[in-house]
């Protein structure tokens, strides 16, 4: 993986202290709280977590496509000299599809059924390249379709979305996103709706294209297999907060937070036979995010719960180098034993 070799490059995107609150009848729902991360060119950051942990809201916030009831605040969301939290809607619309590309979960419904593939691809190009001819756009579309592994690209351009299979449509979406060579891709569960065999192909394709076009990628997934296959950096989210963050290697091999360990135990391992017993699971459900949060949001499901888990705010602190976690225990502790708070960063 290219993560370490390219880490000297300046980050494409720096998110610092991002919060998203959604107005609900009961008050403010803190969908995303104090999320910070950065991504460099050619690097993949995986946002991992179970449903409702704020992964998708994070990605929509970066695109500024949040529902109207949501408010985004951040110290800074720096992208190519812009602060995405503050720039005008017009300026943001110019970046969407042009510098930031997004791929959605379900390719079956992400394409407009009334237009041909070619038409939809060309439209994106022409929108962001004033003065380009339709012929140039078509050539680019044809090149990219063949680049994402669609044979007979010229013929495919004249087809409608319903004439393609799911895997082809997701390739189509990837080609559409590449039309303007964005610096950053946000992929929200790009393989969840696809067959397992096709999933691997799509992930390989994305990695290959990322290197070729020098793009940074934020990959959102609940599938740890996908993470293991693609991630350079991992941010594990729980109840709207990042609970653990670091290189994929550190997070997978030395998980510091009890939640991350729980997630890893939920993952079937290679060669694990049915006779080896039940797959792990984490009891309980994600807590409500309405109102002010105190203490650790995972405490009610944590086997290592201590009285101090209920109090105050628990900050991200370093486990080792660039590896951070949000827990009062020592990294990877298996017994409930508080550490002295003086060592926190």
């Amino acid at each position, binding site marked *: 993986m290219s993560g370490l070799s390219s880490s000297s490059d300046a980050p494409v995107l720096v998110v610092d202290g991002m919060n998203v609150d959604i107005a609900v009848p009961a008050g403010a729902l803190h969908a995303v709280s104090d999320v910070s991360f950065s991504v460099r060119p050619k690097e993949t950051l995986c946002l991992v977590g179970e449903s409702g942990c704020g992964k998708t809201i994070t990605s929509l916030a970066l*695109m500024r*496509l949040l529902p109207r009831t949501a408010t985004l605040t951040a110290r800074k969301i720096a992208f190519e000299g812009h602060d995405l939290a503050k720039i005008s809607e017009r300026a943001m*619309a*110019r*970046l*969407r*599809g*042009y510098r930031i*590309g*997004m791929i*959605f*979960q*379900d390719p079956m*419904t*992400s*394409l*407009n*059924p*009334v*237009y041909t593939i070619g038409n939809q691809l060309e439209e*994106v190009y022409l*929108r*962001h390249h004033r003065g380009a001819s339709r012929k140039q756009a078509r050539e680019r579309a044809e090149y990219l379709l*063949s*680049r*994402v*592994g*669609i*044979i*007979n*690209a010229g*013929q495919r351009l004249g*087809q*409608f979305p*319903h*004439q*393609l*299979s799911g*895997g*082809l449509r997701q*390739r189509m*979406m990837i080609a*559409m*996103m590449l039309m303007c060579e964005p610096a950053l891709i946000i992929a929200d569960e790009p393989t969840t709706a696809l*067959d397992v*065999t*096709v999933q691997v*192909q799509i992930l*390989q*394709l994305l990695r*290959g294209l990322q290197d070729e076009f020098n793009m940074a990628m934020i990959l959102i997934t609940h599938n740890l297999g996908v993470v293991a296959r693609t991630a350079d950096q991992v941010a594990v989210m729980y109840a709207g907060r990042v609970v653990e963050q670091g290189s994929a290697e550190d997070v997978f091999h030395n998980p510091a937070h009890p939640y991350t360990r729980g997630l890893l135990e939920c993952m079937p391992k290679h060669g694990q036979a049915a006779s080896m017993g039940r797959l792990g699971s984490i009891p309980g459900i994600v807590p409500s995010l309405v109102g002010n949060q105190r203490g650790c949001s995972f405490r009610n499901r944590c086997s290592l719960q201590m009285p101090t888990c209920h109090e105050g705010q628990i900050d991200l602190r370093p486990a080792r180098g660039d590896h951070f976690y949000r827990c009062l225990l020592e990294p990877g502790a298996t017994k409930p034993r508080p550490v002295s708070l003086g060592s926190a960063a």
Partner: protein
Amino acid sequence: MSTIVTRTAVSGAAPAGRSDDFDTLAPSPKALMRKRAKGHVGLIIGTTIIAVIVLMAVFAPLIAPYDPYAQDLSRRLIDPVWGAKGSWDNIFGTDALGRDVLSRLIYGARISLLVGFTAAVIAGIIGTALGILGGYYGGKVDAFVVYLINVKLALPVILVALSVSSISGGSIMALIILLGFLTWDRYAVVTRSMTQQMREREFIMSSKAAGASNSRILWREILPNLMNQVIIIASLDMALIILVEAALSFLGLGIRPPTPSWGLMVSEGRAVMFFKPYLIMIPGAAIFLLVIAINMAGDGIRDVTSPEGRG
């Protein structure tokens, strides 16, 4: 498909030969539609009748045996060809002023179709624009659109048409605009609720993520997806407008004499309806035939384009 794509997944180079994927062998939606259209009796009958009437209207000067305005008081109230004193000279007979009924009927088709079609288009533009705006933006915009729809629904169409056309005084243009402004509600109701569903669809979000502006999403992404339904409503609306135009003309507040309009012809036959009932029955039958043909064709289009749901 998967085997072919696997080989080309990363390299991107297409292998020679093997141009046939089986997903391309599925019949195209247009072919399926054509197949369904061929088996739809109502659609065939409806479109045939409409086609005949449209051709009649277009080629009226060539088809009509007489000038529809030429009066000949020596040949008043001649029976149609099947009547006691009828002859092939005036197939549908003559009216009280000695004008040939068939010629007036042929020219009258022009008025009915012109008024029906143009007013339906005006109503369609107003109603669809309001419906899409309300459905997409929601909130205050939607509340305003719903308010307009409610106001419109509370208006008695015939009464308003009567009073306004009595003020504006029988020009065809004024009548068309008036009818257009009185029948847009159905378009608005349907497109508004369809836009509300469509707004949540993923392809809208994905085109936003590709940098599409709101106006692009409204008119280039959502509108084309609603066109089937809009066309179906337009057919029903056109039938309604033709009836209202006939009613207004009958009441003397639509098309003014001597212009040949079917509604006006019924009205003019009123005085002699007990002696010469054909003067009412022939234009009445023409109105009935056109309206039912448009309705049949509209139903047919719906069945053929969206057989799964009754749009």
